[in-house]
């Protein structure tokens, strides 16, 4: 095979990986602050994808533009979930939190199944078949747009956490729970806000992925797993780690699909996960706790 093909596949994997990274960023932010693993993460993303599809098929609204309101809807969903369901579970053992989110995930997948049925749906934008050529590399326009959007959203989130006072307060909760309570921060509300922000990330990522891949309800659990693989590879709780992990896993999957059977591609992602857990459990950029 000529080198061109490898390059093309690698770049395509990199672009998809950036969107994966944004999705995983949501999970990482939630875990980093609230210390709860969101086992309904992929399911929340499929909700965003279906909203994008409904808006597109009913009103011809472009998912990339609708990304902002969809992220808003998911923010509200995340906020309500944290405030209503998860906050009482903060001090409960991990398996109890896991069970709660699994129950939420089961409900989400099957409500989507009830409403939309099991058939795959997709968005056919006017630019669905456009592509850009950079020398020998030809990439789909959809992937370029989605990846750019992912970078913009991630940058916005970084800025928020780095510079805004609310962002600083959230980081304070993550660093020292008791300390945050002592200085008078409303930790429960900040947790809800964080979960909302994590959900907004996954909402934005869902709108972007809706133009790249076909959606079915069972996609949710798969993407939950994918998000785990990415954040642990990059470093659970680390924001740059999530993006880096997303790119790494995106490229690995793309190249493994080319070199081996496409059906075996996730095997390589899981192999990377196992290696990372064993030899660098804090992730590629994470710090040791």
């Amino acid at each position, binding site marked *: 095979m000529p080198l061109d093909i490898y390059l093309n596949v690698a770049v395509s994997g990199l672009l998809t990986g950036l969107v994966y990274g944004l999705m995983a960023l949501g999970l990482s932010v939630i875990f980093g602050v609230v210390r709860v*693993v969101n086992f309904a993460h992929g399911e929340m993303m499929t909700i965003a994808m279906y909203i994008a599809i409904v808006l597109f098929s009913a009103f011809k609204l472009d998912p990339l533009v609708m990304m902002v309101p969809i992220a808003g809807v998911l923010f509200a969903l995340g906020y309500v979930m944290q405030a209503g*369901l998860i906050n*009482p579970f903060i001090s*409960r053992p*991990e*398996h*109890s939190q*896991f*069970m*709660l989110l*699994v*129950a*939420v*995930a*089961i*409900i989400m*997948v*099957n*409500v*989507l*199944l*009830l409403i939309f*049925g*099991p058939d795959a749906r997709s968005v056919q934008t006017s630019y669905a078949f456009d592509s850009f050529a950079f020398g020998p590399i030809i990439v789909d326009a959809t992937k370029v747009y989605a990846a750019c959007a992912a970078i913009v959203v991630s940058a916005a989130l970084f800025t928020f956490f780095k510079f805004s006072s609310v962002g600083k307060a959230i980081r304070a909760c993550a660093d020292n729970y008791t300390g945050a309570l002592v200085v008078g921060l409303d930790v429960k509300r900040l947790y809800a806000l964080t979960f909302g922000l994590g959900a907004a990330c996954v909402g934005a990522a869902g709108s972007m992925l809706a133009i790249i891949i076909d959606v079915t*309800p069972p996609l949710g*659990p798969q993407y939950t*797993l994918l998000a*785990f*693989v990415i954040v*642990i590879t990059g470093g*659970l709780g680390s924001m740059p780690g999530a993006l880096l992990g997303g790119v790494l896993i995106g490229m690995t999957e793309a190249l493994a699909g080319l070199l081996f*059977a496409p*059906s*075996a591609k*996730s*095997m390589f992602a*899981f*192999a990377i*996960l*196992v290696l990372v*857990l*064993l*030899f660098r*459990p804090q992730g590629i950029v994470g710090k040791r706790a």
Partner: protein
Amino acid sequence: MTRLFAGTPTHGLVLLVLLLAALVAAPLIANDYLLTILILILYFAYAGQAWNIMMGFAGQLSLGHALYVGLGAYTASALYVHFGVAPWLGLLVAVPVAMLAGAVIGFLAFRFGVAGVYFAILTIAFAEFARIGFDHISYVGGSAGFFLPVAQYTQNDLWNLRGRPVMFYYVILALAALAFMLCHLLLRSRMGYFWQAIREDEEAARALGIDTFRYKMYAVVISAGMTAVAGVFFAFFYNNLFPEQVFHISRSIELILAPIIGGVGTLFGPIVGAFLLTGLSEAVTETLHALGFEIPGAKQVFYGICLLVVVMALPDGIWPWLARRLGLERRS
């Protein structure tokens, strides 16, 4: 036997004997459909008991127990289909295979200090790895599935596990009863107390001189081996195996629902949970069927809501609450 039930109130023993008697007598009145549901319940009670050793006793959260079910199921079926080895002999290979897998995962995780959420995700990773791997092993059918020969059986062949539901019912009832007794003994053994110490505070346990690595390894290996037996039963009862189904994460979750809902770390938790969840699931199916409301997903939504309610209302599970109601708290 007297040591086995020391400290249990008398009316608790009476209830236990009544439950066992009812289960032994059940095939006299139950038809095949009801029997199949009871088999499913006991299957989950058995597998839940096995998982509970790892999580409930030793505090190691495994979300990948489908791996051990699958390894047990595939090993015994492959031996049966390719070499005609009876499942009871197949167990002698299937159980060690799963134990070895458990030992490898445990060794890697505990040696490298992978714990908590990370450990749970490591177990998922291994199960998923096996799922995709088995999709590509043509010796056992790959993704197209692996099938055990099925025929109309007029006679029950216990040695080859070929026969009618009633035979499977008594097999799984015996397994569930044995698992219950084994867990009871384990929980009150020296090792059981070490496990509980590790579960409550691993560092303190180590400070007291408990070889935590070794005892966590024992927990994983015993749990994996017991779960493999469930896998062998699963294979010979359903006669077909698909990697996509057997190793899937949803199977792992299904296995641990009963003990979590019933009460993690309790002996009756897995049993109560299995009865409640499987009973509920079947009842919902029947009700929706009777109402002519058969849309894919409806049942699972209801199921999910019930799960949510139980998890929120009874964080320790149903059994501790039920035991208080029945006045069965252990006097020790």
